[in-house]
């Protein structure tokens, strides 16, 4: 096993990785910007190296500085965490070229899944259903209507050169499609300089369901169930739960087996997540994240598997050593992402944490690098804490979450704790009756 691991990240996820390393008797190297010199993950690390000034491009994205830090500290391996360089195939390759082990997937798998079009094509080849779409650009209403009839209404018209939600139009029927097509083509020209559009079947009330998988690159692959991440605001996940209130046992087994089979064929190594849209009993692949995810915690709570520990073991060359039948998922888990933001306006709220008291008790886990007197710098992501709750049933989990949110004190800065308190009292949430559009409408309401 590795003797020393360099953690190329910051904040709560750096501390999360430090914990797994220390439990395995591995020494840690924290790299940090000048803004994070007093951070908890830095204070706890066995060795620390300041790698640059506050802007991420000069520190946490500075490949040369991180590799130099690994060299001067004599680290064996590099864990990229999530965000920053975690899905940068060139970084993964550079780490290995310099003689360190990259704790993550093979660079070619990172590269494959990083290209949305190639990823979707790869998924289709691996037998994973994708959102039905036209095979190429559609030019005139007659061709569009023929393609749409095969795909089924409603239809989403997307610019081939588009992204970020721009240049998309929804058509509910034939007449709307004929009307919308030239508008979409003109918009595509004005936004992206190219008028090509293509069609996809439009899911009007999908849930975001993702499957956590672990592969050892030696034929061993398991899944740790699904996570329902439908509660999103501006495409950012806010609260995640497992199991999904929407899936039944047959659907759960089907999507899990599909994901495992595809990853075995691919020969995937390390932790990964396949993301799907789910509606009316059907799953459609969106993308794959070739890294640890923020919400990995809830899968750990129901499976008892330490995903970061598994990443470390797998990177060291160990086989999984267990099969799907040995994975037991028990109870219900919810994660609340607590951000340093105003809970109504969502304006970032960096600053000094004057008071801090984390909730505790049975089934309560807090993944956070906060402490009383620490400073939340203004340069990075606003996620400051993950409150993760486990209960035997969803109801027990919700009751426990309610009391844990009541206990949590973070003074001196604004946080989204009040948003979570409001959210878990909403009847739609309590009933598990929500899709990816629901939270946007909910935060629009004043209550």
């Amino acid at each position: 096993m590795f003797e020393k691991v360099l953690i190329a990240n910051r904040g709560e996820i750096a501390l999360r990785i430090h914990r797994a390393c220390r439990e395995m008797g591995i020494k840690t190297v924290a790299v940090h910007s000048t803004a994070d010199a007093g951070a908890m993950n830095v204070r706890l690390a066995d060795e620390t190296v300041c790698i640059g000034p506050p802007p991420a491009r000069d520190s946490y994205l500075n490949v040369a500085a991180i590799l130099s830090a690994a060299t001067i500290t004599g680290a064996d391996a590099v864990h990229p965490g999530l965000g920053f360089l975690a899905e940068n195939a060139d970084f993964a390759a550079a780490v290995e070229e310099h003689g360190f082990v990259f704790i993550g997937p093979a660079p070619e798998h990172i590269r494959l899944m990083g290209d949305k079009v190639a990823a979707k094509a790869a998924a289709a080849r691996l037998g994973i259903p994708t959102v039905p779409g036209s095979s190429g650009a559609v030019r005139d209403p007659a061709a569009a209507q023929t393609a749409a009839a095969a795909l089924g209404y409603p239809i989403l018209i997307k610019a081939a050169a588009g992204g970020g939600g721009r240049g998309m139009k929804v058509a509910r029927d034939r007449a709307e499609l004929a009307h919308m097509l030239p508008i979409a083509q003109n918009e595509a020209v004005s936004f992206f300089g190219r008028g090509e559009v293509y069609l996809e079947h439009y899911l009007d009330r999908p849930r975001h369901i993702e499957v956590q998988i672990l592969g050892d690159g030696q034929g061993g692959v398991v899944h740790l169930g699904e996570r329902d991440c439908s509660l999103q605001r501006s495409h950012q996940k806010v609260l995640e739960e497992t199991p999904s209130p929407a899936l039944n046992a047959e659907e759960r087994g089907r999507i899990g087996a599909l994901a495992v089979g595809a990853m075995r064929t691919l020969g995937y190594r390390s932790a990964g997540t396949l993301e799907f849209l789910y509606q009316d009993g059907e799953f459609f692949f969106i993308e794959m994240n070739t890294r640890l995810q923020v919400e990995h915690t809830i899968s750990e709570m129901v499976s008892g598997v330490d995903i970061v520990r598994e990443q470390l073991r797998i990177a060291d060359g160990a086989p999984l050593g267990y099969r799907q039948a040995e994975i037991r998922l028990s109870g219900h888990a919810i994660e609340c992402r607590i951000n340093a933001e105003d809970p109504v306006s969502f304006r970032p709220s960096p600053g000094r944490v004057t008071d801090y008291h984390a909730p505790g008790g049975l089934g309560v886990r807090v993944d956070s690098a906060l402490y009383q007197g620490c400073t939340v710098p203004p340069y990075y992501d606003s996620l400051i804490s993950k409150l993760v709750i486990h209960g035997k049933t969803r109801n027990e989990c919700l009751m426990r979450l309610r009391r844990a949110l009541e206990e949590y004190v973070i003074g001196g800065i604004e946080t989204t704790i009040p948003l979570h308190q409001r959210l878990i009292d909403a009847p739609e949430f309590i009933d598990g009756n929500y899709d990816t559009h629901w939270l946007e409408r909910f935060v629009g309401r004043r209550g």
Partner: protein
Amino acid sequence: MRFGGRRPSPLAPDPDLIRTLAQLLVENGLTEIEYAVGDRLIRVSRGAPAAAAVTAPTAAPAPPLPGAGASGPVIDPGAVTAPMVGTAYLAPQPGTPTFVRLGETVAAGQPLLIIEAMKVLNEIRAPRAGRIAQILVEDAQPVEYGAVLMLIE
């Protein structure tokens, strides 16, 4: 920077020594007195902002106090700091004389040392003219971003 699991142990101030130095200061009508033993330095001054400054020369800048903000610690204007993480070399090549010596007067832009990062040798030059008052790194010592390498007076 912290290596080998050792916590940074700030130079423990010796109250008796500081008291003696302070007395000498008053008795002789001085405004500042510096006392160095080996690589440890104690400076006691009157009227200046710092009453008793204790520096641990080879240590990186102390972590800022919680809430001190992101500007980082105040650095001596004559400090030469590392612009990157890497390994510091005081001589152009192994076995050759060092670029500069303690007490030597240097011109602005004169090479002081090399930092090797990613197998590239980066020459660090004097930001201003003056006398090399302190050399705070040893040859082949790893340095982190912002570490104080030398002081120029």
